């Protein structure tokens, strides 16, 4: 306890970097550019990811408008390719992953009773890479056409040299280089989470006392750490094939396009769990609070999450059943895909067990969590259908698959994260989101979601292909496509209601106090919003659901008894915080990161002057960063 405090007062006394006047302010608009506070960085991630969510949503609406009826003419084929490629790329790399990182960044240190993450400046670097990488990708729209080879970017479609290629222009170059940049960002976040969780837990917070949220985010971090370098390698090969005439996926020189798919899905399937596990993490925190029961089978939930983390590496080839990988591989990957449904099913039963017999409060976060369970289960079932090889050969590349993964990733991840917004909003901003508007947005979203994606199962089984910009009349798909488009606009309406709710809360909301939901985990033990140093005193943990046990005990008959108010306060006397030295703000993460898009543009346009400038810039940023102490004396 005291050692933690003392360590935080440890200040470097070495000569201070003087390349730039160090920023001092931790408040005001400019502080958002220099902050190293994990909570502010979490908010930045969240706001930016939501902005990309809106852009990706507009792209989805464009797709749906185009497919409203047969022979749509709103978009040309090439525009349609750009829109669906960027929709997928945005929702996965610019919304799903960063929004999960936003939650992880904000909550992990609070939940484990730490003052900050392990590497605050690298944390900010990760954010800048995400923002600049996203802007870099989107700048392609005005610099000669956006990526148009699908979010999976199959070679040789994407990799054939530009001079004689299927996809002329710079779209796929922006895609490969942009994704490599975003990969660097997510790997740094993953490193940060792993080290924070392993090394910075409060005294008494053993691994099996950590909230399930922290556990699942740790699994996600390991998956990210090991999956991103594989796709980075594949993307480099595509870039080199396109621009330098290497033969990695060039079949006429005995290169193998299937290698690309193997590498891509060896990343891509763990990526699916990178996206869904944070959803499971959020729901595992919401359900116990709103059922007033501890999570049913805590350790089973944790270990099944770890099992998913391992098994997720053994199923990638089920994305390739239709490519001629042979019956042995097909059977093996079919079986492994069904096996991974087991730990997933275990989790679902644990969530149901948590709600079962509980004193259920149907507040908005709980509605979203229950919506998650229902929608995600449907998505899981259609996944098992696709694991059956003969069925998959019929379903693959049809709208059935689109339905399946939207049930998993929208019905799963997005529902869970919206539940997370409503649940943690009071902690982050000190005000409750409006419940009436919240429930309205939930029901509109639930109806809109099912209206959009359920009919896709049917048109998919009827043979409607995905990724095709139009379809002929008289195929019997018209009505269902019209329903889907209406549903998509309902989803957009629900998101609009959510935004209205945010504005309404900002203007009218009442302060809510530190623990409005009567919750269980440590983030609720500090004020809302928490101070920069999180806890005036580092909590000492004696229980799983520590915060709950500080509020409640049992009498002789086993009934819950509320302990007197004040007994619970972890933030008793904030006198100690005068001695807490948090890491100082810094310009260097931003300055350093600016070098990456410069380098990126250099590689896209093969402008070696830009590449050189980017490299020199990065060296300059590295030097400034390395010579600046993380905590400035006297701040």
């Amino acid at each position, binding site marked *: 306890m005291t050692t933690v405090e003392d360590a935080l007062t440890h200040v470097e006394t070495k000569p201070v970097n003087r390349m730039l006047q160090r920023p001092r302010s931790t408040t005001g608009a400019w502080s958002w550019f220099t902050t190293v506070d994990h909570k502010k960085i979490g908010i930045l991630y969240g706001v930016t990811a939501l902005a990309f969510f809106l852009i990706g949503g507009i792209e989805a609406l464009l797709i749906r408008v185009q497919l409203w009826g047969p022979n749509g003419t709103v978009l040309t084929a090439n525009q349609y390719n750009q829109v669906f490629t960027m929709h997928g790329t945005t929702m996965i790399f610019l919304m799903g992953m960063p929004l999960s990182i936003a939650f992880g960044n904000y909550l992990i240190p609070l939940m484990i009773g730490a003052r900050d993450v392990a590497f605050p400046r690298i944390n900010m670097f990760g954010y800048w890479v995400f923002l600049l990488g996203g802007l870099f990708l989107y700048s392609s729209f005005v610099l000669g056409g956006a990526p148009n080879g699908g979010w999976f970017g199959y070679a040789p479609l994407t990799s054939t040299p530009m001079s004689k290629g299927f996809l002329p222009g710079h779209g796929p170059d922006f895609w490969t280089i942009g994704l490599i940049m975003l990969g660097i960002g997510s790997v740094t976040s993953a490193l940060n989470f792993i080290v924070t969780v392993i090394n910075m837990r409060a005294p008494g917070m053993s691994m099996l006392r950590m909230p399930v949220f922290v556990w699942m985010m740790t699994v996600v971090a390991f998956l990210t750490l090991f999956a991103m370098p594989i796709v*980075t390698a594949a993307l480099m090969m595509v870039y*080199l094939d396109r621009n330098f005439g290497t033969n*990695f996926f060039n079949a006429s020189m005995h290169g193998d396009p299937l*290698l690309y798919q193997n590498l891509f899905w060896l990343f891509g399937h763990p990526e699916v769990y990178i996206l869904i596990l944070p959803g499971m993490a959020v729901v595992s925190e919401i359900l116990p609070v709103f059922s007033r029961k501890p999570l049913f089978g805590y350790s089973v939930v944790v270990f099944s999450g770890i099992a998913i983390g391992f098994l997720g590496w053994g199923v990638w080839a089920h994305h390739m059943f239709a490519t001629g990988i042979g019956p042995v591989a097909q059977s093996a990957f079919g079986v492994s895909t069904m096996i991974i449904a087991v730990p997933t099913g275990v989790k679902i039963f644990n969530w149901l067990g948590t709600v079962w017999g509980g004193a259920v409060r149907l507040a908005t976060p709980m509605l979203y969590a229950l919506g998650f369970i229902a929608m995600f289960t449907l998505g899981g079932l259609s996944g098992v259908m696709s694991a059956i090889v003969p069925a998959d050969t019929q379903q693959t590349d049809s709208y059935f698959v689109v339905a399946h993964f939207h049930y998993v990733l929208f019905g799963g991840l997005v529902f869970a994260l919206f539940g997370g917004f409503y649940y943690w909003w009071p902690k982050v901003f000190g005000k409750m989101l409006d419940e009436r508007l919240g429930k309205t947005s939930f029901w509109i979203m639930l109806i809109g979601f099912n209206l959009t994606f359920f009919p896709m199962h049917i048109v998919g089984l009827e043979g409607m292909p995905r990724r095709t910009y139009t379809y002929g009349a008289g195929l019997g798909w018209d009505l269902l496509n019209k329903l889907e488009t209406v549903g998509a606009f309902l989803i957009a309406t629900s998101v609009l209601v959510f935004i209205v709710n945010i504005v309404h809360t900002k203007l009218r909301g009442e302060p809510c106090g530190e623990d409005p939901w009567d919750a269980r985990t440590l983030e609720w033990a500090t004020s809302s919003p928490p101070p920069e140093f999180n806890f005036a005193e580092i909590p000492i943990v004696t229980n799983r659901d520590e915060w709950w046990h500080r509020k409640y005990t049992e009498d002789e008959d086993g009934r819950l008894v509320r302990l007197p108010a004040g007994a619970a306060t972890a933030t008793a006397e904030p006198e100690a915080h005068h001695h807490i030295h948090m890491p100082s703000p810094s310009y260097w993460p931003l300055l350093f990161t600016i070098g990456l898009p410069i380098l990126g543009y250099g590689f896209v346009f093969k402008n070696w002057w830009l590449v050189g400038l980017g490299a020199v810039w990065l060296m300059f940023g590295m030097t400034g960063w390395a010579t600046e102490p993380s905590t400035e004396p006297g701040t």
Partner: protein
Amino acid sequence: MTTTVATTDHGHPATPTHVAGGHPTNTGISNVKIAIWAFLGSECLFFGAFISTYLLYRGRDTIGPKPKQLFTIPFTSCTSFILLMSSLTMVLALAAIQRGDHRRFRIWILSTALFGLTFIGGQVYEFTSFYRQGLNLHVNLFGSTFFILTGLHGAHVTVGIFWLLSLYSRSMQGKLGTEESEAVEVAGLYWHFVDIVWIFIFTAIYLVPYH
């Protein structure tokens, strides 16, 4: 893990804390060291992807220069040996700074960088000579996979050389005391990793016979 007395400038009593990174940790291992291990784990997958690509495409070519025509195994064995020896000097550099022998530390760290540079020099010579004999990125699969895999490894060695030289310059400025020996240890872990990866690459490319 050694401990020492940390300094503060606020008039608080100096308190014992871990040298490494400054923070006491749950594991007793510093944050930086866990991070570098995790990062190297990530790098394994990166090199793994390129090495398996090389092995998959090995011997598939029907046109262009063949490995047998190009390789001078004794030459590459020499530069590989020099690279592996640099791991020894790296260990000696770390041992020197840990016992506070800054003069020897500088000698050993500089020799490590020099060995690395020699290896890179050998690679540049090899690349040039292969290129003159008609091997390039697009002539065949061997050219693509060979240049990219060994080139990426060379880039990693180059980054390592810059890292070692920055440690040397910090030491010359008197900013790298015995308490900061972990900075050397972390650079050393990276350096050893790059060496170990080369053992795999060298074996896969040069030593396994071609048919």
